């Protein structure tokens, strides 16, 4: 830390990153470190929580506090951390199987609560760590180890789901656009409320369909097309342009779909937090007799 400015290097841990060469998650890691640095957040005031999957190794590669939890439970663990000490910056991160599959229930409820946490989903549309089964975002007809004749379910669209569930910052990034990612993360962390950043993060080993080139041929910037992120109807239309029931896949929007800044966060409304962060509350009872009155 020179001149009081925290350098990018200081957000990195000395643990060797173990993702496959070319994995989209590298761009997410770099983008996240850049966003933290841009915001000059103190590493000890940040906690990154993940679930299980290749991408969920991410907390180990940063110098912040980290909690690499069990499959699908990054959001509840992150919620407990945030409510115990709302002064921390809490970021949940993981894969599409982790967040939209086994953890889907928590995902929806965290959004309707509008907790002030940032959720980064490294969406590769496949189960990588378990060597290539279909995921909740695998496209229809995709052939995987568990679907040799092709997927027959419709994929989850995390963005329309987030719109329906009440997330107040909804964005999509792409690992082929590192600069864009850092920007989306930075805005998401700054956002007061639940921020979802779904990142198209290609799996170079198990997903031979949705590759960097495949996305490059289809991706476009919402910002450049003048999308109004305060317009729910427009956000829905853009979010529903891929994936959707019609299996249209010609154009894939990137950027901020929706943002609301006038909705109070869960922390704003939680009665117990009026006293300040629970971590700083004195333990024990000052006047137990008053509590016993109702039992007399």
């Amino acid at each position, binding site marked *: 830390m020179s001149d009081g400015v925290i350098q990018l290097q200081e957000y990195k841990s000395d*643990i*060797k990153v*173990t993702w496959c060469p070319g994995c989209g998650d590298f761009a997410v890691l770099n983008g996240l470190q850049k966003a933290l640095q841009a915001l000059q957040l*103190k*590493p*000890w*005031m940040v*906690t*990154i*929580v993940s679930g*299980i999957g290749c991408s969920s*190794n991410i*907390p*180990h590669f*940063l*110098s*912040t*506090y*980290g*909690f*690499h*939890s*069990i499959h*699908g*439970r990054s959001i*509840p*663990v*992150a*919620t*407990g*951390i945030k*409510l*115990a*000490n709302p*002064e*921390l910056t809490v970021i949940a991160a993981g894969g599409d199987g982790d967040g939209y599959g086994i953890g889907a*229930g*928590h995902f*929806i*409820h965290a959004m309707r609560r509008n907790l002030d946490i940032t959720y980064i989903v490294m969406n590769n549309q496949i189960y990588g760590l378990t060597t290539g089964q279909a995921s909740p975002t695998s496209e229809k007809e995709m052939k995987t180890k568990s679907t040799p004749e092709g997927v027959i379910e419709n994929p989850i669209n995390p963005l329309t789901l987030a719109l329906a569930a009440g997330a107040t910052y909804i964005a999509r990034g792409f690992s082929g656009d590192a600069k864009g990612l850092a920007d989306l993360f930075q805005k998401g962390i700054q956002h007061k409320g639940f921020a979802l950043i779904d990142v198209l993060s290609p799996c170079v080993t198990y997903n031979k369909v949705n590759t960097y080139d495949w996305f490059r041929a289809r991706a476009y910037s919402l910002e450049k097309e003048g999308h109004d992120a305060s317009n729910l109807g427009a956000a829905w239309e853009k979010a529903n342009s891929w994936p959707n029931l019609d299996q249209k896949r010609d154009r894939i929007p990137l950027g901020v779909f929706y943002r609301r800044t006038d909705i109070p966060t869960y922390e704003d409304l*939680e*009665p*117990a*937090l*009026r*006293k*300040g962060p*629970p*971590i700083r*509350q*004195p*333990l*024990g*009872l000052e006047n*137990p007799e008053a*509590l*016993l009155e*109702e*039992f*007399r």
Partner: protein
Amino acid sequence: MEQKEIILRIGGSAGDGGTSAAESFAKICTRSGLYAFTYTSYQSVIRGGHVWVQVRASEEPVLSQGERPHVLICLNQPTADIHASHVRDGGAIIFDSDNIKIDTQRLAGAVRLLSFPLARVARDHGNNPLMKNTVALGAAICLSEMDMRVVESAFRAIWGDKKEEVVQANLNAAIAGYNYAEEHGGSLNLGLRYTYKPRLLITGNQAIALGALAAGCKFLAQYPMTPASSIMHWMAEHAPEHGVVVKQVEDELAAVNMAIGAGFTGVRAMTATSGGGFSLMVEGLGQGGMVEAPVVVVLAQRTGPSTGLPTKTEQGDLNLVLGAGQGDWPRAVLAPRNTQECFRLTAEAFNLADVYQTPVIVMSDLYLSEGYRTTDGFDFNVPIIRGFLAADGGEKEGEYLRYKITESGVSPRSIPGQKGLQFAAGSDEHDEHGVLISDVLAGIPEYVELRKRMMEKRMRKLQGLLRDTKGPELWGVRDADLTIISWGSSQGPIREAIQNLRDSDEIAVNSLEFSYLFPFHAQDTLEILRGTKKTLAVEGNYTGQFSRLLTAETGYKPDHFFGKYDGEPFYPSEIAAKVREVMG
């Protein structure tokens, strides 16, 4: 010598107000200076069905719900049909003459019938026929010779924050019932003396919640499930004033993981559930053991398997708790034997969880969690022991080892926000820093050895947990012909059975009671068992889950087993009968 007591039973449909009348009666008894005890037999239905409550009150602490009632209040016909024959000789039945018939042929002796139009009297005196329960309550007050001034003060305590009219209407209804009973024979002459000594009437769940607050719990995440829900209800009501975040969450997976997240962040955290919810928490708890996060889990047992009998009691989840989670991880399991221990052991659980940085499970059951008991009070001088914390600046930056291998197995704990002590907790196996050895290091000889050492480090905590907890209590005579072995909430009925057997000079029995179940105090237990002549294990389950733990830990097998799995609590009479049977 039979103790002076009154047993009141009130039955009706759900929604008839029997439960609230019974709770009022227990409160009035407590305010009059008696010890009260309630057991509610209810069903998984909101309206209708058959609900009955037994309130037993005595000058001495009450150990069980007791058996046959002195007074029965029938709020519907099925109550009369099911319970009238249980009323003791010399007792009384209070019922509505307009719509309830009593089959006098089936009564067990001279039972006074207090038959009057409860609903009509309620309408005339309380302006509300629904207050028929209060009219009947007034009659019961007369039969037990309690003071209407106590009734008035109790009503004010119950409805004080509502309108004065509600208090007055209920009081008028109660007085009308009292006067009717007075005009029709008056007191049952049970010989009760009233000292008016102030005490507390509290459920096990309320005592658990109170114990948690006293220990500094600041976070409760819970999903509703009988019979654990009232922990959340009480905590939610008191949460804001005590800075406790109380969160009703989407499921028990969320509940346990949120509590672990809060515990990891340094806040004393808890969740509570019954067996079904606990089943969902299992993976999360193993994670707590692996990342070494403190958390307290209250498991209020009900009848299984599956959703079983949701409103009935059992002690059938011990195997589940002992085996919860894949692999081995250190846990402590406590089972309060009574309301006092609900408070004390819950508070203690928070210390054990912090000191050993691992999940601690407190096992109650419906019988203990939902029943009201009068208690003298609680000792709020609860010690708060946070354990081995990596204090700010106490550890050198870069040298801090969150999972340092130590002799006790406990490592210095930092929490988010502490500068220079960052680490990443991993649910995969990890080294002393927290760096995973699962993905690229596993199987390499050095790391094979390290995995072994990390495992041993964590499991060494069990030795400390054993030191910091207590062995079983041997209660009663030293030189008994039979020793009853039990755990948790069956303490009361067992002790009462033993007292009754002693009073009738039948058999000398004592009671070996466990409230610290795991880690198991094998040496203390064996020492006690060596001095016994014959043993009978009494458990509220089919297979003898605790007996198996006892045998596994000590090699000792109890001579006899009495398992109860009908959903009902233990009655002293059935325990005494079993004793007589095995002593043949």
